[in-house]
């Protein structure tokens, strides 16, 4: 990712932490956006490690990754993911 100005992202991937069990499907489907923390839970690559709770729970999805994000929503074994638009 570059720092060039981007249009406002159309979609947000919301992670419900009360449901997520860190099974790692979303991090496989969206490796560009999500890493795994040391306990296996998804961690947004954007933003600082000490990013706000909102940054960690609502990940901006660029249009090119929309399909992968939809797959992650459908396949998350804990139904912890939701795609919302801003």
């Amino acid at each position, binding site marked *: 990712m570059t720092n060039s100005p981007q249009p406002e992202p159309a979609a947000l991937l919301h992670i419900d932490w009360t*449901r997520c*069990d*860190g*099974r*790692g*499907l979303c991090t*496989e*489907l969206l490796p560009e956006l999500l890493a795994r923390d*040391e*306990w*296996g839970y998804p961690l947004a690559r954007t933003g600082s490690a000490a990013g706000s709770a909102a940054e960690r729970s609502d990940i901006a999805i660029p249009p090119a990754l929309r399909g992968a994000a939809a*797959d992650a929503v*459908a*396949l998350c*074994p*804990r*139904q912890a993911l939701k795609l919302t638009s801003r």
Partner: protein
Amino acid sequence: MDAALWAFGRGTGVVSLVALTVTVLLGILTRSGRPLPGLPRFSITLVHRNVALVACAFVVLHVVLLFFDSFAQLTVLDFVVPFFGSFLPFWQGLGTVAVDLLIAIIVTALLRNRLGLRTFRVVHWLTYALWPIALAHAIGNGTDGTSVWFLWLAGLSTLAVLAAVAWRVSARFVEFRSVRTGQLS
């Protein structure tokens, strides 16, 4: 014609059982959250689902083919209500029970994202009843049920499923379990 129907009825039954066994093993692997070499987690989930659907297709063939078989003498009732069959009613009834369970499990699995996790999970656990019931039906009802090759197949399948279940209930089953519970390595 009857001989052909009977042969296909048997064959599709055996394929169903093998596919169900593979599905159970893949389902347990899915739950562990672990990938296989060359097969990421989301692929394992999808293969688990697809093999389950293949198993269903063969179960449908198995039931429909035997419906037209004059020896099995299935009625429409036997598709859903167990233990009223004319040929080995107990063992055939187990097959009907397995079909009922399979329908419930597949429907709730396909509607998982609408039904919510709890319903899905409770019904999905019925798989642990479905698999041995289907196996018992195969052994008790099947023409080949007590032939040597089939008993080998049944024995190896049972070993594989028991090993997977033993792994399932072991402490190290879930990935990251040790870091999450604060143990070292």
